[in-house]
C-alpha cells in the first residue's frame, strides 16, 4: 500500500475534518481532541505541527459551528466576547507560567476540579 498517495491525503483530511466538526458542533469545543491524535496517527505529524495545524483549523471549525448555532439563536455574543478576549491574555499568561510552575501537581489538582464540575453537571 502506498503510504501517502495523492488521493489518500485529502481523503484523510476530509475524514478528520468531518469527525472534528461533528465533535466540535456537538459539544461546543474546538475539536483539537480529535484532530491532534489523528494527524499524528494518520498523517505522521509530529506533536507540535499537529497542535499548530489543529489550532488553525479550529478557527474555521468553531466559526462554522458558531454560525450554525446562530441559526438556532443560541449564541450569546456579548458573553462570547467577554470570555474569548480575556482568554487570550489568560493563555499567554498560562504558557508563560508553564515553564515556572509544577504543572504535574497542577494537572492532578485540576483533574479533581474537572471531575467535581462534571459531577455537578450530572446532578443538575
Amino acid at each position, binding site marked *: 500500500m502506498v503510504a501517502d498517495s495523492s488521493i489518500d491525503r485529502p481523503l484523510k483530511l476530509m475524514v478528520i475534518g468531518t469527525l472534528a466538526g461533528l465533535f466540535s458542533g456537538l459539544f*461546543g469545543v474546538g475539536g483539537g481532541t480529535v484532530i491532534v491524535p489523528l494527524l499524528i496517527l494518520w498523517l505522521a505529524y509530529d506533536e507540535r505541527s499537529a*497542535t499548530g495545524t489543529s489550532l488553525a483549523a479550529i478557527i474555521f471549525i*468553531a466559526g462554522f459551528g458558531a454560525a450554525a448555532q446562530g441559526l438556532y439563536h443560541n449564541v450569546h455574543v456579548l458573553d462570547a466576547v467577554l*470570555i474569548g478576549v480575556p482568554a487570550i491574555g489568560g493563555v499567554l499568561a498560562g504558557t508563560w507560567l508553564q515553564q515556572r510552575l509544577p504543572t*504535574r501537581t497542577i494537572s492532578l489538582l485540576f483533574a479533581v476540579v474537572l471531575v467535581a464540575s462534571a459531577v455537578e453537571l450530572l446532578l443538575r
Partner: protein
Amino acid sequence: MIAAIAIGLAAGVVAGLLGVGGGVLFVPGLVLLLGLDQHQAEATSLLAIIPVAIVGTYNQDRYGNVRRADALLLGMLSLAGAGAGVALANALSGELLRDGFAILMMLVAFQLVRRALRASRPMSDAPRHPDS
C-alpha cells in the same frame, strides 16, 4: 459581566498552562457560573474559541508549526461535520447533552492524570521542548 471575564481569564490560564482546550472550560463555566443552558453555553463557547484560536495560530505559525495548506483544507472540509454536529446537538435535550459533556470532562480529567503520571517518571522532568 465580571464573571464572564473571570471565566475567560481563568480558562485561558489553564488552557495555556496545561494544554487543555478552552471549550472544555468555557462550557461548564457558562452553565455553572453564568446560568446559560447547555445549548446556549456550547454555542457561545464556539464563538469565544475563535479569538483564542486566532492568537494561538499566530503564535504557532511563528515557530513554523502550522501547515497552512492542510489547516485550510481541514477547516474547509469540516463544514458538513460542524453543521451536522450542531444540528445533532440541537436535536438532543439539554439534559442529555449536559450529561454527555460531563462524561467528556471526565475523559479530559483522566487524560490529564495519565499525562501527569507519565511525565513524573524519574529523570524525565527536564525536556519540555524536545528539540533534537
